[in-house]
């Protein structure tokens, strides 16, 4: 069944190529971790948006049927055989794809990675959805935007040793002076367990009766904190914000426990990856440390020493757009 689906996907790719490709169209392949995942379907939507803007671009949205590196290697080999102009990939493995992608680059194909990167030797550049400083700033901004008079905020993190969360919290603390009147009263850890996060959130509300916001830069924590706020009857008094997924946070937005939260926007990500792949393949921009590459309506990305760039601030979700995104990812 699985191999049948794979066959269909490959056949569809070929069919698409035979049907619509004209000689001068640039063909950009958007290779995702697996087909049928809402997040990547949304990225494909963004890629089509970019193609529509550019005009002479054809998007080949493809990927394996399950999230394996082997499946992606097969897909890439088939794309090399089709002589596409560019491959933009969200990789299932950092290293396993390098030899195949090197082969693609030797054939003159532009290769970039986005979302989930490959090792530097396997791609020309990597596009991160955001960067640690941008995330650290955003989670504090989300809380501060709802507190014009200032107020007390607390952080509910994952575990004490979670690398990502610790970096984001550090970055957040660095920008605290830019938000006068906002006091960070405590940082607690819910270990990414629903029950412990819930209890920690309850504890925060008890220890700090004047608490105005809980910032949870972790998807389990933010959901649990929102539930704790609802159960404590403090909706409207304590705003839960941070990083979460729209599908998981829809209930919290609906109940009002969370006014807004952030995470990458997959549509923008697919759009930006396509724009970058186009500019690189066309030769308008070059991927080198310090270089800037155009991303259409999203401005420009600046590459660091690893040829890695950050797209933008995390995208903010609130009651105005949650319904559109909760079905996507």
């Amino acid at each position: 069944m699985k191999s049948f689906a794979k066959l269909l996907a490959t056949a569809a790719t070929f069919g698409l190529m035979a049907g619509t490709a004209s000689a001068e169209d640039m063909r950009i392949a958007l290779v995702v971790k697996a087909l049928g995942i809402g997040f990547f379907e949304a990225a494909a939507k963004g890629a089509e948006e970019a193609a529509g803007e550019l005009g002479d671009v054809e998007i080949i949205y493809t990927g394996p049927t399950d999230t394996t590196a082997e499946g992606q290697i097969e897909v890439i080999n088939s794309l090399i055989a089709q002589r596409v102009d560019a491959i933009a990939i969200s990789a299932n493995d950092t290293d396993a794809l390098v030899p195949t992608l090197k082969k693609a680059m030797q054939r003159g194909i532009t290769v970039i990675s986005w979302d989930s990167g490959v090792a530097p030797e396997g791609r020309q550049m990597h596009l991160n959805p955001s960067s640690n400083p941008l995330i650290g700033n955003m989670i504090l901004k989300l809380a501060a935007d709802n507190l014009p008079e200032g107020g007390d905020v607390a952080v509910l993190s994952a575990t004490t040793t979670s690398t990502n969360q610790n970096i984001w919290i550090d970055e957040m603390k660095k920008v605290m002076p830019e938000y006068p009147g906002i006091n960070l009263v405590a940082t607690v850890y819910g270990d990414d367990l629903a029950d412990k996060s819930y209890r920690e959130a309850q504890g925060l509300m008890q220890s700090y009766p004047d608490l105005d916001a809980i910032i949870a830069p972790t998807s389990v924590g933010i959901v649990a904190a929102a539930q704790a706020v609802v159960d404590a009857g403090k909706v409207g008094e304590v705003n839960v914000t941070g990083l979460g997924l729209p599908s998981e946070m829809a209930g919290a937005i609906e109940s009002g426990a969370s006014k807004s939260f952030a995470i990458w926007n997959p549509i923008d990500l697919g759009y930006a990856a396509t724009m970058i792949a186009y500019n690189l393949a066309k030769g308008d921009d070059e991927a080198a440390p310090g270089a800037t590459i155009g991303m259409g309506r999203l401005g420009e990305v600046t590459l660091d020493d690893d040829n890695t760039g950050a797209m933008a601030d995390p995208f903010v979700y609130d009651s105005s757009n949650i319904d559109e995104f909760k079905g996507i990812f």
Partner: protein
Amino acid sequence: MSILKHRETLLVAVIAAMLALIASRFPGFVTPGNLAAVFTDTAPLMILALGQMAVILTRCIDLSVAANLALTGMAVALLNTVAPGLPVVLTIALAIGMGALMGAINGLLVWKLDIPSIVVTLGTMTIFRGIIFLISDGQWVNAHEMSANFTGFPRIEILGLPVLAWIAIIAIAAMGLVMSRTVLGRSIFAAGSNPHAAAYTGIDVGRTQFAAFVISGALAGLTGYLWIARYAVAYVDIAGGFELDVVAACVIGGISIAGGVGTVAGAVLGALFLGVIKNALPVVDISPFWQLAISGAAILIAVAFNARAGRSKGRVILKSAEHAA
């Protein structure tokens, strides 16, 4: 018997002392409202500890309770997304049935194939977690996908306590009756304290162990629904590692891992002891790095008490045997 009595009074004293200590740092903790909240928060742990107690009494252990809870919880959550109108009573009956079925699988493997329970339940634990992944496809079931009845039921307040707490109280009373007033309850004690003697009196030890696993499974299934409804989210790793808390609650409550010794009150107090610690640590401003160490130390101290209690009992028997000789 005096040792058992001692254990329970000791636990009550320790819990009271802890509450006093916490109150000195955070007076709000000992208000009746908050104590009720702590009791409610500990309800899932108490219910699971009751089931685990029955299993441990028969010289077995059930490490699959948290996975059972998670699988049942995911199943009823998924069911709720396709049939939001299903009455909660039916959901609960289904959850208990599913949990009991999973407990029965454990029990059958232990009873009929004579596999050590720790191996059986380690295996079923991972199998259950795997099944959750298969039925959910790794996706979460989120608050907005659950019906208001489904998540609201454990929160309904009756006489000042939420239904979740009342269910725990009913479970405690029911287990108290079963353990002290029924043939099954007495068989569980007999099968655990001396399996050979139990067999001679006509008790089928394997069957008794099977029954204990079914009880544990049924209670885990019930908790599965309660847990998902309380936290309004279901995903693969829900209650990850919670089986260890359950075993710890039993051990702290004076239930002997060697089987045959333990009480319903002990299991409940053991769970409450952990529940008070879990709820107090976030408010007394202790570094998170210390929290795990404190929980761990409490378990070690309890085990040391258990071991001492067991040893002195053995010595007494030997001494009296020596005297007799």
